[in-house]
């Protein structure tokens, strides 16, 4: 049984992505007790799935390492992985949270030696790579996962493979009898940092994400560019595995569209500008990027980054919302159709690979949210006093990049600290 020691002066953080981690660490480092609940088997969230950050084009691993080290060193922080908040009762200063913890089937003895992975044969879709490629049934989600412990896929349970994994472990770390459990504990304030999910590209029917293999999303492209990703960092066409040198990027795929997401997702312009660098890096002058856009929103200091990309002769900008994608009968390649609004010229351009710059959809489900919560039209949490002691952090509050998420999360931590300080004042 997992035990959590918590009181009305404890801060509960829901979601362990960059926002949740930041909020949890900032609060814990002021001396407050913090419990972080994360649905995945590891913390770091979607940031772990990025190859590089904009605008510095540095690797997120560095920031993750700092945060994970802070987490390991802080005795005030308890991290629950594979855990979801199922209920929240009470009010500011006095909440009771119910948390469902799914079994990992691997206990604390795990040294991440990888013997179980070698012993197992069954493979499943790799959700870390958005289903591009497979991983073993006993796996480490990614190379610097925290906590650094293996996971046994529940789909493998009851099979011979599961037993093989258990037998291979020298440390008695595989426990196939682990059960799902629900625990309850107190909290004074709650930071809601459930982040975002990429908008379902298949809903943008004219772009044929569900029909054409060579139409992918920006998050998938990010995995593709990563040397540790499903293609080993090679930019290839999913249909035939051939080199993808002529890459199209479609901006506002779902964002700023009343048929899909009302809001501007804010990160996609910069993400695309960043990803044109991947194409350039991979193929040099042979790599061509075409960016189809309504307008490029590279805000404040990012303008400089945009200018530099504009100066690159291998990157072209076409001011047009693409009307539809079809498939060439001759080459089988995707063809982008539309009208270039600078000159009103009609085009039908063939590309090796099309990357949809999909927007950010908030991961806040109003139906199953455990307490009364104020959401705006876009589905993000409003900073409303009605929300009591529940404060949104990062992308649960708005479409934000990593930098702004971290800033926002620090602010949320301060709000939560104020609530538990008030509790401490009355309780003495």
């Amino acid at each position, binding site marked *: 049984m997992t035990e959590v020691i918590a009181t009305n002066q404890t801060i509960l953080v829901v979601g362990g992505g960059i926002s949740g981690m930041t909020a949890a660490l900032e609060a814990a480092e002021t001396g407050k007790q913090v419990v972080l609940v994360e649905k995945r088997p590891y913390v770091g969230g979607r940031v772990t799935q990025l190859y590089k950050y904009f605008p510095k084009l540095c690797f997120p691993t560095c920031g993750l390492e700092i945060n994970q080290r802070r987490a390991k060193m802080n005795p005030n922080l308890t991290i629950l992985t594979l855990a979801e908040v199922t209920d929240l009762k009470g009010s500011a200063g006095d909440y009771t949270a119910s948390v469902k913890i799914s079994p990992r089937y691997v206990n604390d003895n795990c040294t991440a030696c990888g013997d179980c992975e070698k012993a197992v044969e069954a493979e499943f879709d790799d959700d870390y790579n958005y289903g591009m490629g497979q991983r073993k049934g006993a796996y480490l989600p990614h190379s610097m996962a925290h906590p650094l412990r293996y996971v046994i896929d529940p789909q493998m349970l009851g099979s011979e493979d599961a037993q093989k994994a258990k037998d291979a472990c020298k440390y008695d770390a595989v426990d196939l009898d682990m059960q799902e459990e629900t625990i309850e504990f107190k909290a004074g304030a709650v930071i809601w940092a459930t982040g975002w999910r990429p908008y379902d590209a298949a809903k943008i029917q004219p772009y044929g994400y569900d029909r054409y293999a060579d139409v992918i999303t920006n998050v998938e492209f990010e995995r593709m560019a990563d040397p540790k990703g499903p293609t080993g960092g090679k930019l290839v066409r999913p249909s035939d595995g051939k080199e993808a040198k002529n890459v199209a990027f479609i901006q506002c795929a779902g964002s700023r569209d009343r048929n899909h997401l009302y809001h501007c997702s804010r990160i996609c312009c910069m993400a695309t500008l960043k990803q044109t660098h991947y194409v350039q890096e991979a193929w040099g002058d042979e790599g061509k990027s075409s960016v189809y856009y309504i307008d490029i929103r590279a805000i404040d200091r990012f303008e400089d980054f945009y200018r530099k990309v504009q100066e690159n002769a291998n990157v072209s900008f076409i001011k*047009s919302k*693409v009307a539809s994608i079809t498939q060439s009968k001759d080459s089988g390649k995707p063809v982008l159709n*539309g009208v270039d*609004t600078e000159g009103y010229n*009609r085009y039908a351009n063939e590309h090796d690979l099309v990357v949809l710059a999909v927007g950010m959809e908030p991961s806040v489900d109003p139906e199953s949210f455990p307490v009364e919560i104020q959401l705006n039209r876009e589905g993000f949490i409003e900073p409303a006093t009605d929300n009591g002691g529940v404060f949104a952090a990062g992308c649960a509050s708005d479409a934000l990049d990593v930098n702004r998420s971290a800033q926002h999360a620090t602010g949320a931590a301060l709000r939560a600290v104020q609530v538990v300080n008030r509790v401490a004042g009355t309780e003495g």
Partner: protein
Amino acid sequence: MSDLNTAMTAKYRNNFLKEVEANVEEGEWVKMCMQCGVCSGSCPLGKHWEHPPQEIFMMIRAGKRDDVLKSDSMWMCTSCYNCIVRCPRELPITHIMHGLANYAKRMGLAPKSQPTNQFSQLFWDNMMKKGRVNELKLGLSLYFKDGFGDGVKNAMANQQLGMNMMKAKRMAPMEIIGGHSLKDVSGFQKMIKKAHEIEDQNIQDFS
């Protein structure tokens, strides 16, 4: 918004945009266009248009009254609704195109030889006579719109079609004499005339 701001906004909004907003059906939507171009790219007849919808919207904002109203572009719309479905700002583009065509016609600026315009006039004249559309006469007037010779040629070419339609009771040959009618035709004509007058009174002058 402050009063000054409202005044400045009004100043920069040109007369033709105001005219469209006031006088064209659904015209108040024009200013909502963000020029993404998805309507133009989605139009199946787009390559036959002189100005695709989003260009028309920009021309309206640029005050190009004559270029817009004399254009045959909006007459090319077949109401397939592709543009409406895809418009990220939910502009009723198809309806605006019809609104513009209608307004151009009313202003006497619509291109006379544009076939959709011609057919619409034939349809209107036909319906106004009896308050009901006489399909046989409408067909014939369309065949003969370019003169007697062309009319005979068209009729001969579609002879078999006509026979088949008669057999299937899809065409009533007796409609050629008189044809079916409303009970109170003159009342109907007066009503339409009155409606026309009211509409004319509602047209605002921005010249």
